[in-house]
């Protein structure tokens, strides 16, 4: 069966192109593990990866203030953006083929038994300038607000993250999103961009760049198999995210549409071994975007690792799209948690064309788990 599936995926990869990653929100831990997270998303981002993983949860978990900030990784080229704001030519020189990403997100929420709920608050702007002949600036700006709530239910067996066991579980989640977005491309020296930027009112500028608003409900579905005995745990999961998510655009003069939240089918598996005293190793792998025919096989593959050195400190490592590496750390002290690191996203039409190197810093100021049983 696995050979058949791999054959199909390889066949799909022969026609590979056109792919955009449009995850609603991503876990900092997941990002640093190569986004190979479908079967291990048991942190406060569960509902953004696989609602079936709620079936592993017991007790009460709460995360209140947990901002994450992402931006361009300028460590290897710290003067890259010097002079970018002086003139159009200066900006073009600095930004040509250099993806500029800015993101701020919050995902406060709670889990109570197998039910979970999380707020969606995610701001993200991506700028990409390409074409040395007639420079084209691609603007992908989003500000998502809303909530997602879900429930995980064992179909057979019984398993919990702390207690082990074996189960096969399902899960569903419902979400509501309001999205403010710009998804547009402009000639850098063209009339519409120069005209827009000559204004002084920020909102008027964004509107002239094509800012639109939309809102709608969505549904996710997931399956989860988990088997934990002694020090070893094996998990395998399937998530069909946004199986039916429709965002309706508010009326606007230019007829722009708010970017859709397309369906994604992801499959993941992981193995974790614990050696006591908080020392543990987790290896995970995902095959993503099974819903798309025209994506290179290597672009679908994500692998990651977490090395827990102690209950306080962990290291992360991951690879996605063949040569995009991620690495980082987590430090936990009581109710406080910090995660930091670097990762690379594949954003070109074809594998290896354009990569966005980004940093991540995440703080959780009040996060706890409580199991009365």
């Amino acid at each position, binding site marked *: 069966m696995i050979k058949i599936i791999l054959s199909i995926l390889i066949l799909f990869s022969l026609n590979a192109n056109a792919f955009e990653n449009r995850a609603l929100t991503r876990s900092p831990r997941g990002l640093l593990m190569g986004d190979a997270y479908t079967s291990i998303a048991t942190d406060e981002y569960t509902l953004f990866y696989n609602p079936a993983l709620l079936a592993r949860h017991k007790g009460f978990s709460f995360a209140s203030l947990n901002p994450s900030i992402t931006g361009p990784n300028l460590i290897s080229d710290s003067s890259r953006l010097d002079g970018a704001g002086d003139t159009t030519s200066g900006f073009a020189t600095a930004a040509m083929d250099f993806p500029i990403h800015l993101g701020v997100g919050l995902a406060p929420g709670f889990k109570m038994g197998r039910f979970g709920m999380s707020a969606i608050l995610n701001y993200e702007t991506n700028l990409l300038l390409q*074409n*040395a002949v*007639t420079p084209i600036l691609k603007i992908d700006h989003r500000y998502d607000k809303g909530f997602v709530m879900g429930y995980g239910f064992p179909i057979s067996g019984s398993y919990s993250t702390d207690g082990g066991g074996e189960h096969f579980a399902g899960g569903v989640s419902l979400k509501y999103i309001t999205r403010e977005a710009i998804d547009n491309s402009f000639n850098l020296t063209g009339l519409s961009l*120069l005209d827009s930027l000559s204004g002084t009112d920020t909102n008027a500028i964004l509107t002239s760049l094509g800012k639109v608003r939309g809102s709608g409900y969505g549904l996710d579905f997931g399956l989860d198999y988990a088997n934990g005995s002694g020090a070893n745990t094996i998990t395998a999961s399937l998530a*069909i995210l946004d199986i039916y998510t429709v965002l309706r655009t508010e009326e606007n003069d230019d007829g722009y549409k708010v970017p859709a939240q397309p369906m994604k089918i992801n499959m993941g598996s992981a193995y974790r071994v614990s050696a006591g005293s908080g020392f543990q190793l987790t290896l995970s792998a995902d095959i993503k975007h099974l*819903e798309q025919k025209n994506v290179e096989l290597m672009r679908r593959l994500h692998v990651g690792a977490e090395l827990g050195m102690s209950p306080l400190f962990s290291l992360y490592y991951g690879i996605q799209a063949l040569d995009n590496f991620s690495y980082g750390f987590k430090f936990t002290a009581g109710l406080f948690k910090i995660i930091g690191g670097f990762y690379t996203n594949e954003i070109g039409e074809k594998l290896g064309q*354009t990569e966005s190197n980004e940093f991540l810093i995440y703080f959780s100021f009040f996060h706890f788990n409580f199991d009365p049983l």
Partner: protein
Amino acid sequence: MKLIEKLIILLFLSSTLASCAKTDAQAIKAAINEANYHLTSMDCVSAKAALDGVDFQAGNASYISTYASAQACVGNYNELDLFAELGDISAAGFLESFAALSSANETAADSTTYAALKAAITTLLAYDGATNPSTATRNAKFGDAKSGDLSMQAMYLIMLQIGKYFALYANTDTNGVKGAGTFSNSCIFSYTETDSVNIITTLTPGSCSGATGSEGSDFLESPVTAAAIKTRLCEGVILYTNFTDILSNITLPGSSELGAIADIKAVFDLAYSSAEAAEAGYVANSTDAIATLRVIREQALCEAADLNRISKWFALLMESQFTTT
């Protein structure tokens, strides 16, 4: 393990049933994105191949823009280089300024670079093959914003192409001064038509002070065929008419980086009206040359026009705007 097998079967079914190929719109967007990626490294061939992977999209402004960009790439065109020189352009002597652009140097007719820019301009203006394209038609089709982007992209290309045109045929030097270049001609064209000869000998515009039939560019006289001469003259006519059509029908942004471009409209409006008024005194062979050719923006329409009128257009309008000596 039976549960894992169930999971795999479900995966197989869901991916088989739900996986989808790109829609036409996604394929076009992907072709444009990929072309832009290749154009970043000036890989013109790969960019063109990506765009040719889908049918030509005459109704998609982004596709038209990128296609023209891929064609201009062959001419090693860089819009930012031109943009950086806009501040040096003088509205009063805009033809001289265009000819003085650093990449406007041209020493041979119909060069690869000139042909590449010509193809790009044609794509931007005549993307759908309609007769006598105009800025107003583009505005109606694509809306002011997208049409404005196409028009400005065309405007930049035309400015450089006009510069190349006059650098070659008007024999300009690096400052754009007519008749001061490396060739020997003092006029653009060797005028033999009665009205044109009278215009030149009376007005003596710039270096063009005589009209004995040999003062013009070698590239616009025998042994070049009459058809090729008319084609080249008409290239100059429609570059000028399309440039003035664009500037007359878009509102330029208030960016200081555009220099004096917005002021050029007043200059050519005055040049048009002065030429039309002056033409009243030279009507031996034709009338209304300026008014007739002013609204022609397509090569074929220009080539169908009377050569006497085209000759008068150059004598009255083109030569008269090159007065710097």
